[in-house]
């Protein structure tokens, strides 16, 4: 159809369809809304660039840490010291946590992106187009959450996996190399992705509740990265504060990617329950609030 609308707009109209309900095959489904959200996320260039940068920097940070670890080892010739830098109790596991060591940076970017994706829908007015097309709001929100969580998982686990292969030659110079089949190695890589996925759900839920990009970014970064620091400062003298700090979403994430579990600390799975619990709680709240509010 190449006829300019200016000359023949009416003749270009399709045949009348007074009963569109009888047309099969065009019902809204979760899979279709997922595809729509995928198109939305991948069609804004700055989003795609941010995702690529996050992946590259996470790999780079892991390589940098590996290089620094081997360097200090080679200089000091003291494996114990390098191990302590990693918070590990022995040198063998010192390298295990390196592939996902860019996680803090990854969280910062992916949490911000998750907030931006949902808050910009309100900021630009796009949410009205979205919810006219998919009036079941929970369906629309869950699809967006799923696409972003999926992307975050791939970014986290993917960059950790690539970083694993990148850092092996570096670690081998200090005899710190390890295999994927080593105990905890693969779990660390997968959990790096899982933490990013859960953090993106956490942040996008906050973005949905606040509906404002700046406010949402500040709040989620504050809770994920600043709150643990405050708890550490005030937890130094007060036991209950230190105790409560273990239940922060960020603490849950830390335990998920830990390669050694200290005495009395939460395991990876318990960490997943804590971070997952927070994300689920906020997700539920965001769905409930959005269901009722006018947009």
């Amino acid at each position: 159809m190449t006829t300019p609308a200016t000359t023949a707009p009416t003749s270009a109209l399709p045949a009348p369809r007074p009963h569109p309900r009888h047309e099969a095959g065009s019902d809204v489904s979760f899979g279709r809304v997922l595809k729509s959200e995928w198109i939305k996320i991948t069609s804004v260039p700055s989003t795609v660039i941010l995702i690529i940068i996050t992946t590259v920097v996470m790999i780079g940070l892991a390589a940098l840490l590996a290089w620094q670890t081997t360097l200090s080892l080679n200089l000091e010739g003291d494996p114990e010291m390098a191990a302590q830098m990693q918070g590990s109790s022995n040198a063998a596991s010192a390298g295990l946590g390196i592939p996902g060591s860019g996680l803090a940076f990854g969280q910062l970017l992916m949490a911000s992106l998750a907030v931006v994706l949902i808050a910009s829908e309100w900021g630009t007015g796009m949410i009205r187009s979205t919810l006219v097309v998919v009036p079941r709001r929970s369906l629309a929100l869950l699809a967006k959450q799923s696409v972003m969580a999926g992307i975050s998982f791939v970014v986290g686990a993917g960059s950790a996996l690539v970083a694993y292969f990148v850092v092996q030659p570096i670690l081998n110079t200090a005899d710190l190399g390890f295999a994927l089949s080593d105990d905890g190695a693969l779990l660390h890589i997968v959990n790096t992705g899982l933490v990013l996925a859960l953090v993106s759900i956490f942040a996008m839920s906050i973005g949905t509740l606040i509906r404002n990009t700046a406010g949402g970014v500040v709040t989620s970064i504050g809770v994920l990265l600043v709150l643990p620091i405050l708890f550490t400062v005030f937890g130094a003298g007060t036991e209950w504060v230190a105790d409560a700090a273990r239940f922060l979403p960020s603490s849950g994430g830390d335990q998920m990617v830990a390669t050694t579990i200290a005495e009395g600390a939460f395991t990876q799975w318990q960490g997943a329950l804590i971070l997952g619990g927070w994300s689920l709680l906020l997700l539920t709240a965001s769905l409930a609030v959005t269901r009722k509010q006018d947009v």
Partner: protein
Amino acid sequence: MIEAQALSKRYGTKTAVDAVSFTVQPGKVTGFLGPNGAGKSTTMRMIVGLDNPSGGRATVNGLPYPQHKAPLRELGALLDAKAVHPKRSAYTHLRALAATHAIPDSRVREVIELAGLGPVAKKRVGGFSLGMGQRLGIASALLGDPQTVILDEPVNGLDPEGVQWVRRLAKSLAAEGRTVFLSSHLMSEMALTADHLIVIGRGRIIADAPIQSIIDGQGAARVRVRADRPQDLLGSLAADGVSSQILEPELLEITGVEPRHIAEIAVRNGVLIYELTPIQVSLEDAYMQLTSQEVEYQSRSLPSTGLLAASSEGHRA
């Protein structure tokens, strides 16, 4: 078909829409006319489920809009031309909307051409003019080839060619048996496009009738008469119980009597008539009369300068 039953929207103590009930029938263009702030957009937003009604309900083709399995096939809406992410192109915007209903790319390209957006389809929406934004909004409203189309102020920002296009489009959609519901605060626009009119003011329905009957319903026919002896003519007419006004020494405005009857009386009394003009009530007049009590933001005339001059504080104003 759109049905509203006692549809209400309150914001705190302020009532934006006050228990309105109406039916928008298929096969004709129904205009939704009212001054700014009358509740047009709020009503339309409640129909598509963006706003939750405080009371009552609205259905589209028999079901509340959000309950349809394929909502875009039932109703397409242009509510806000700026409801688009500015960094996306018109093409990807429509493709994202279409994906939710598995509407093929061929249909996306079809509505782009239909809306005359072909040359700018791959450009960022952020750089669009208001008129192009309107066209994109109309394209997205037609995407699902819906039975019912809602357009909120569709001619806003359009160039004259675009305005004509919207008029023809609305009429042709209605001619195909679709339900077309479009709002405007411009009565001249409605007079040209709509077959049926729902007039809203301060959240209440003031009129709901075919457009001609709204025009006809506003006061009896008025006739302007120029005669050499107006007093004699009026004296003879007074018996018929009609009202009249003398505008100029030889110019009268007579209400409530047919022009032919005036001419007959004039002939019988030997009065010379040199003008006899029936005055057509325009939709604009009808609308002003209907909504004069219902305007939310009424412009007040400034105090006359004479009063100010007389006032001792006049210099401060």
